[in-house]
């Protein structure tokens, strides 16, 4: 499904603050895989997502998604195939537009004739159904401005916006990190259900290692712009947070350090 070969990205090249954010990274995802991504600050997790989405172009390497070469494709064209939810709940929605207007924007982005009225009756019915599945009561507040919703509700709306047209790839960039624990769990549950129902190929960055090991089907640990460990199947099932820490310090000869990473649950 997703194939990244030999990806290189260097920031501030030729200056004293030169920083290799992606270092000859290779990664292949198969259809329907749910990959969690962990790593310390500056490991290159978000850079990897930005590279896939086309926020910048790679210095070297190639990105293929479902057979389409994304390497030089502009950001807004890639966005037709890729859904992305950011950590900041403010980022994914237009605050002064209603829930249904936001969803309609996402739903008809590729198909609508520009001068057709939106949202259509058909769309409204679809949005109602999909929102009701979240059990947050959002289906009764479709004419509410998104700016008036709580962070968790906004992330749920954003998630639906990203998946209402089934994307080829769903990217979740610590999308529950800014929420309180109970809301975060609720949004995670919605995420799991959505990914499962629509069999979405998904990558999720998280700073919660135990969540990374128990959610999805495969876990990547990134460090210094490379994939350090790639775990799936039985090996991953047996892995504990402590094992991972030991493996990390064994390979890198330093302790795993991150102010944001949750080492224990």
């Amino acid at each position: 499904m997703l194939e990244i070969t030999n990806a290189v990205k260097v920031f501030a090249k030729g200056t004293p603050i030169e920083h290799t954010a992606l270092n000859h990274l290779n990664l292949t995802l198969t259809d329907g895989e749910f990959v969690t991504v962990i790593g310390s600050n500056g490991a290159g997790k978000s850079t990897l997502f930005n590279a896939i989405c086309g926020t910048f172009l790679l210095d070297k390497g190639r990105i293929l998604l479902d057979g389409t070469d994304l390497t030089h494709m502009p950001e807004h064209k890639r966005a037709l195939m890729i859904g992305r939810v950011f950590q900041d709940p403010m980022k994914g929605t237009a605050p002064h537009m209603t829930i249904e207007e936001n969803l309609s924007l996402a739903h008809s982005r590729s198909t609508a004739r520009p001068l057709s009225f939106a949202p259509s009756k058909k769309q409204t019915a679809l949005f109602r159904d999909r929102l009701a599945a979240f059990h947050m009561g959002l289906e009764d507040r479709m004419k509410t401005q998104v700016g008036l919703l709580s962070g968790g509700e906004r992330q749920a709306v954003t998630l639906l916006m990203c998946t209402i047209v089934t994307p080829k790839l769903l990217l979740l960039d610590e999308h529950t990190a800014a929420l309180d624990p109970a809301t975060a769990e609720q949004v995670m549950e919605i995420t799991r259900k959505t990914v499962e129902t629509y069999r979405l190929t998904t990558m999720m960055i998280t700073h919660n290692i135990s969540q990374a090991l128990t959610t999805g089907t495969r876990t990547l640990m990134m460090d210094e712009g490379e994939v350090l460990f790639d775990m799936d199947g039985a090996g991953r099932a047996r892995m504990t947070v402590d094992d991972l820490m030991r493996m990390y310090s064994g390979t890198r000869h330093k302790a795993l350090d991150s102010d944001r990473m949750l080492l224990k649950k």
Partner: protein
Amino acid sequence: MKLLIDSIQLGLLYGVMALGIYISFRILAVPDLTTEGSFAFGLSVSAAVTSLGHPVLALPAAVLAGAAAGAVTGLLQTRWKIHPILSGIITMSGLYSVNLSVLGGAPNLTLVRAVTIFKLLPFLSKNDAKTVLPVFFACLCLAVSILFFKTHLGMCIRAVGDNEDMVRASSIHTGRCKIIAFCVSNGLIALSGALIAQYQGYADISSSTGILVVGLASVIIGEAVFGRRGVTVGFLSSVVGSLLYRYIIALATRYSPLPAHMLRIVSALIVALALALPAFRERIGLARLRKGDERNA
């Protein structure tokens, strides 16, 4: 009574411009200085085409001219990444020469002998036409604007003004949306200029100086009455704001000792005060808090 009718007529004609200003200032959240040029562009094109004997054709010609000016500003801003304010200033300055050439090298053109749309209507005297046509054009433009922003394209434009990053990330071409919005906005502004030229019976290039502030004042006065709500209410309130603005100005010129050339500074003060109001409120709020703390201490 004459005062009221005059301000209704002018208010409606300038209300068409207020719709355009609302699009750039509130929906796109960019104060668009192209306005100063595109209003005069509409004015000159309309006067020139009318004096050639085509008063009706003058209106679509002016709309196209204004839309072209908007497209230039939009391109400067999106394709060539020039600062929004600066790209408006560039277009506006360039248009000054264009407008002079349209008027045949002179800064003004009289339409006294030409047939204007106000003399064209059957069964209506020129004075009645001067009320009926502004009502017609204001309602038409209001309806078109409201409906346009209920379409998918209109919604994309609203989203660009609301959260541009999100729109870019959802595969909508933000640059194209902005350019279309500037075209629509400046098309309306130019139409307003075109109508004013035929209404007054002359075109004067300097009449567009400070017109942006007039438009902003209308939008803000409208919001003071209706509050800041959805886009539909916003358009309606802009036209009402324009009516109120004209009436206030008419009263001011009639009853105050201020000479007519002081009008623009009055408009400028209205806009500055209205835009500064949130900051004033915050300061007053802080001062109250501080006082309250001192009392409790």
